[in-house]
């Protein structure tokens, strides 16, 4: 974990209201692995007060660069959407426990909903480098919200799109699209997912029926981002009848789907 200034190298509004920042920060680019995040201070005057966590969408260790992709949703992301090339941002990271794919995996399934697709882009790249066949399912509410994911993915990753209003790809939820493929004989070895809680919950039901191992990246409000304040804790199963609170920022954000209490 490093606390350092990172320089904005490139900004792009990839689709309406959705931004990509390419940032220069050697320590983060070199040390991060998929599923980890950075905790970004937004304003010197601390308005807004707290840092904002962003999943890493891509790293270039040799160039010392990394990318975050975010949607403009509030005061913090509004300020961040206006940064310019050359600006220096106060950044803490890489943080958290990310995806831990099984070593002998050959076929990986990635399921992303909305902006939750960001950490899966990083994961897809790494899995493909290791010789995995990667199939990505990616859904949004409408065509205009779909991030051009192919722009951030290596060739060869199979991309299946879904939109709730049917304006692009499969009409309906991304989980329904995935279910259709399962029924048609798709045999996933392990599934990695990030997105709205409802989407993850639906996937977890698949897990219960088919016993497919799954790793989910969760999101919670965070204050410290390093595991000290216990503000981002979520309930997890421990054994049959007991639950504990685990920290999304340190024990996660990636958890096994069978741990999560819905």
């Amino acid at each position, binding site marked *: 974990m490093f606390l350092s200034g990172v320089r904005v190298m490139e900004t792009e509004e990839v689709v309406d209201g959705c931004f990509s920042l390419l940032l220069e920060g050697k320590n983060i680019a070199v040390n991060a692995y998929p599923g980890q995040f950075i905790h970004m201070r937004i304003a010197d005057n601390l308005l807004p007060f707290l840092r904002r966590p962003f999943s890493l969408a891509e790293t270039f260790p040799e160039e010392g660069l990394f990318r975050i992709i975010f949607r403009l949703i509030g005061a913090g992301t509004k300020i961040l959407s206006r940064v310019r090339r050359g600006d220096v941002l106060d950044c803490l990271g890489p943080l958290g426990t990310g995806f831990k794919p099984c070593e002998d995996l050959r076929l990986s399934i990635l399921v992303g909903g909305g902006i939750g697709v960001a950490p899966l882009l990083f994961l897809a790249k790494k899995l493909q480098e290791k010789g995995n066949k990667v199939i990505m399912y990616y859904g949004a509410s409408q065509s205009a919200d779909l991030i051009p994911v192919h722009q951030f993915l290596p060739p060869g990753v199979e991309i299946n799109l879904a939109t709730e209003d049917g304006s692009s790809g499969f009409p309906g939820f991304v989980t329904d699209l995935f279910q259709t493929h399962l029924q048609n004989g798709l045999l996933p070895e392990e599934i990695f997912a990030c997105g709205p809680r409802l989407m993850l919950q639906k996937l977890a039901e698949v897990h219960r029926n088919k016993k497919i191992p799954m790793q989910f990246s969760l999101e919670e409000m965070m204050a410290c981002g*390093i595991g*000290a304040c*216990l*503000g981002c*804790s979520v309930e997890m199963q421990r054994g049959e009848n007991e639950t504990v609170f685990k920290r999304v920022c340190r024990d996660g954000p990636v958890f096994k789907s069978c741990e999560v209490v819905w």
Partner: protein
Amino acid sequence: MADLRVKLGPLELQTPFMAASGTFGFGEEYASLLDLQKLGALVVKGLTLRPRKGNPPPRIVETPAGMLNAIGLQNPGLDVFLSRELPRLKKSGTAVIVNIAGDTEEEYVTLARELSRAGNGVLALELNVSCPNVKKGGILFGTSPSILASLVEKVRPVCTLPLIVKLTPNVTDITEAARAAESSGADILSLVNTFLGMVIDVASRRPFLANETGGLSGPAIRPLAVRMVYDVYAAVKIPLIGMGGILTLEDSLQFFMAGAAAVAIGSANFPDPLTIPRLTGELNKYMKKEGIDSLEEIIGAAHQNTV
């Protein structure tokens, strides 16, 4: 280097900047970002006799110039603290103050007795009678001066360490609680804990936090906290630890001048984990520039022209 040491009755600190309870955990997470030895003291996360699970999420929400939290005293309990956290803290060389909380007077007494045992390396105890986020105990002990006095009287004889009582601001007159704690044996008072608050999620038409209410901290509460330190300084003779939304050296100086002999940094650690080392350096420069030899010269300075 100016002399930053401060003496609060029986408690001596290397610098007047402490990490406030609940914002620094047991120090482990921050140890890779800063040297824990450079803290005036680390007040650990509120400790209870038995492990506590804490409140369901969401536990925090950002507010204008601050945040609400309702963690609910999640902690591993006394045994795990003594066997796992304390040895590691001692090794780090930091000055450890343990914040203790209980559902009953007996629990506070047991905690105070166990933590006072010689050789375990605890510098002082802070009696948490002001946590707003638990159903039993906590704030209930701090809102009635007579109940507070009874608790402090029972803890005092078994506590061989300097005894700090942390006051809640959620009362009509904080000086009543301050006097009650002083007269029943507290060595030091720390103030203020968080202000009870609420954010409503208009989409769901329900309170945002699962606990419904939470404690407000951050710069939003600073003027309220400064006023309370100022009033309590005039009401008691024992030393004070001031806290409430400190971000900058100027904020800290306000608390010193209101009457605090040391200050604690809480929520500011979240946006800037290096707040305490930064303030320590800035205070050093300030004292040199102003020709101040000892911080005592400015403690309570704001009172000097009042009748």
